[in-house]
């Protein structure tokens, strides 16, 4: 379909603002741009239709099943959107006097308290704007803590080989060296290997539990103990909190600081890649290092303050506040039973789907999983030449968003499924039928799968060409 710029017609426009009624002021010519930006000239109808067409070529949670592993694509309730759109939240200036923003500060304070209880933390900042941003913030917290104690030798962050790519990238950004530690045969952290790499240079460990294989590491208490014994801190990547909320808390497992993804676990929408929100929680002994602009409460109400030994700000103001409003609405709706019910059903759905699929596909680690599980399609690839990519692409024709492909890196031909708790048995049954049908197709007609999808707006794109000769914006002909 056409780009906005190709639909443009000279002189077309919307009447949006009145003519200015104050005297015309002239800046010096030297301050002015030579020509107007070539923005499209369209009518409101043009715009409306353009984006309706684009919407039709976009698959959201509302369009169908979205078992994208590690991303927790649960349903995003409409009430959360409505509350975030309230004028009393949406049209409030971040630099208003504190007396005039008591409602916003209470939202931040109450959300922080609820999330601290859910995670077993003592304090929390809502400033980070996304999960990776939270990781970076948490690592700076760890860094600041060690440096403040005069412990300058702690330069290493230990990351399991099953970790999200953001973990090592965040560690580098925070000025650390990354030490990778392998997984054991059960998919958990290899304790012997872990013991080998820890020492006086260990700043901390970053861990997702359940990990990216969807497995809860039963050695978790031993793992955090090993790190603490050498003076390191334990960082919890909250990407998979949806499996365990209301049932076990990172704080009780020995973690010292964590980040959460409100856009995963707490049902705020992903928006095609953001905005998210990545709050960072910590234990008491780290709270003085938290970023600036924290919210406190005393007898006069809520107030803003900067912790004594702050690591500094990671974003302007107080983070993605309106996302926080949505998450608070969600948590208040679920409440104590709802939170536990959500994690339980997420785990139930994943185990149910795994159980039904394992008759056809190999499960990478065939044991009880948490909220997600990983299939290994190595055998199918070897026998029929059908790859994880082929199966994923084939599911597109059935209106299913594919699972996460080729991740975690330690599983070959990996497909990672996370159904989430908001899907019904019927939806999962239908999806299983689809994957069975694809499996059968792989036996009878692998060629068909190599060229899938066949019924989407486009067929497979040439990604190599896109990277080799980058075209990153529209080029006008004139």
């Amino acid at each position: 379909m056409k780009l906005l710029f190709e639909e443009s017609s000279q002189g077309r426009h919307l009447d949006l603002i009145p003519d200015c009624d104050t005297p015309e002021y002239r800046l010096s010519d030297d301050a002015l741009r030579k020509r107007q930006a070539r923005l499209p000239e369209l009518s409101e109808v043009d715009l409306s239709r353009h984006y309706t067409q684009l919407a039709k070529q976009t698959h959201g949670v509302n369009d169908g099943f979205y078992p994208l592993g590690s991303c927790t694509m649960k349903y995003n309730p409409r009430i959360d959107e409505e509350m975030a759109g309230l004028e009393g939240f949406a049209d409030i200036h971040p630099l208003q006097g504190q007396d005039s923003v008591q409602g916003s500060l209470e939202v931040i304070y109450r959300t922080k308290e609820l999330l601290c209880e859910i995670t077993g933390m003592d304090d929390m900042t809502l400033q980070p704007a996304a999960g990776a941003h939270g990781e970076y913030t948490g690592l700076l917290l760890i860094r600041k803590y060690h440096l403040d104690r005069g412990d300058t030798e702690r330069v290493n962050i230990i990351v399991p080989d099953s970790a999200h790519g953001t973990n090592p990238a965040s560690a580098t950004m925070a000025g650390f060296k990354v030490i990778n530690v392998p997984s054991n045969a059960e998919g958990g952290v290899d304790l012997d290997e872990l013991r080998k790499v820890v020492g006086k240079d260990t700043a901390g460990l970053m861990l997702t539990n359940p990990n990216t294989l969807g497995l809860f590491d039963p050695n978790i208490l031993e793992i955090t103990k090993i790190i603490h014994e050498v003076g390191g801190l334990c960082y919890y990547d909250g990407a998979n909190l949806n499996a365990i909320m209301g049932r076990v808390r990172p704080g009780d497992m020995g973690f010292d600081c964590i980040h959460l993804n409100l856009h995963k676990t707490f049902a705020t929408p992903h928006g095609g890649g953001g905005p998210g929100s990545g709050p960072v929680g910590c234990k008491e002994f780290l709270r003085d290092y938290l970023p600036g602009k924290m919210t406190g409460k005393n007898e006069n109400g809520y107030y803003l303050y900067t912790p004594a030994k702050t690591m500094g700000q990671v974003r302007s103001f107080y983070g993605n506040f309106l996302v926080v409003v949505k998450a608070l609405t969600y948590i208040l709706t679920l409440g104590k039973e709802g939170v536990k019910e959500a994690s339980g059903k997420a785990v139930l759905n994943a185990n149910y789907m795994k159980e039904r699929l394992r008759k056809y596909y190999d499960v990478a680690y065939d044991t009880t999983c948490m909220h997600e599980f990983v299939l290994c399609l190595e055998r199918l690839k070897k026998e029929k030449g059908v790859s994880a990519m082929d199966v994923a692409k084939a599911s597109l024709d059935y209106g299913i968003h594919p699972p996460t492909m080729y991740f975690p890196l330690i599983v070959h031909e990996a497909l990672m499924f996370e159904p989430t708790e908001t899907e019904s048995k019927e939806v999962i049954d239908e999806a299983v039928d689809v994957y069975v049908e694809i499996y059968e197709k792989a036996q009878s007609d692998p060629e068909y799968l190599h060229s899938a999808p066949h019924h989407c707006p486009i067929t497979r794109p040439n990604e190599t060409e896109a990277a080799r000769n980058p075209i990153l914006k529209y080029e006008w002909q004139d």
Partner: protein
Amino acid sequence: MGYVPDSALKQKEMLKVIGVDSVDDLYHQVPEEVRLKDLNIPEGKSELEVSRIMKGLAAKNVHYSSVFRGAGSYRHYIPAIVRGITSKEEFLTAYTPYQAEISQGVLQSIFEYQTQICELTGLDVSNASVYDGAVAAAEAIFMSLERNKNEAIIAGTINPETLEVIKTYCESRSVKLIVLEGEGYKTDIGELRKHLSEQTACFYVQSPNYYGVIEDVEKLAEAVHEYKARMIEGVNPISLGLLKTPGEMNVDIAVGEGQPLGMSLGFGGPYLGFMACTKELTRRLPGRIVGQTTDSQGNRCFVLTLQAREQHIRREKASSNICSNEALCAMTASVYLASMGPSGLEKVARSCLNNAHYLEQELAKLGFERVSKDEYFNEFVTTCPMDPAVLEKKLSEKEILMGLVLNDRILWCATELNDRNDIDGLIEAIKEVI
């Protein structure tokens, strides 16, 4: 009390297939001693109850009918079509467009956004967004670092929020930071020259700066380039409806806060960090970038590209750790710019300029004197002939949020919403107080 669709009975059926008796059995790997006995948060509530609580919280904020405060967040008119489009559930509930075949809508919209940012800034390449304007500035500094160039010089006239974030980012990467000092409201090129050296990786200046003043970016860039360092400019995107572009002034990287492009004040977020640069720096850009290609049938289509820079491929060697960005905010900006069109954007920019200068003139009559003579866009600093705290309180009672108090001075802002009537109302209100 939640969004779990299946009844207990149905869940039983599922448990039977798995071969366990209860959901709790699925948690057998969790050590007994850490299993949570009781989650101490309130009971769940119905939608109506929750909506009453949230509306109650919103009502505790003061909503001003008239706002003369900017300082990094700007209240502009948001066309109805902007919210209409960006609240479409397909856009709202999609993930990052990894699967191009069913994500052409999001991908094309980002490609259009990238084009518009390039047009606004006069530069070659844009990414798909970062968290906010402050983070964009910090990331731009990282883009500029070279093996033997590890110093970043920062103008003293930038937004203090941005400076805070830059400090945090640079400290963690051991980047040497030099913040220019000086009394004035505009960057002194002599002061910059004192610090430029072979070690300088970049110079970051904001224009219009925190005090609204338009900086001599072109001259500053010339000095910076003498040392083969990068020139980074922070810009207000609305001002680019009128002001000279970073590209026209030989800037290497332009960054900014995209909030004025159709996003609400939102008590500080979600906002939009935009970044654009010269072609030469393309592969140093952090975050997602969308590119044009063809599908196997030869049709034009769009994909996430140049991913060899990114964390999911490069892990600890990635150019940045960013994964989620502000995609829906980028779409918001794109719809805003498309609805305004070239003339609409210029009209908004001219209205901001005119209204601010009218505001300055009227305030001066009451003894609020502007403290600088330099050209400005829509923000300016004045003296205050009375106790600013008292003035703020009195105006607040009249539903007016006045300019931001900077010690004994005031940083005022006007947008197209502050028309003659709005400004005259402010002036009348001040007269009653003074």
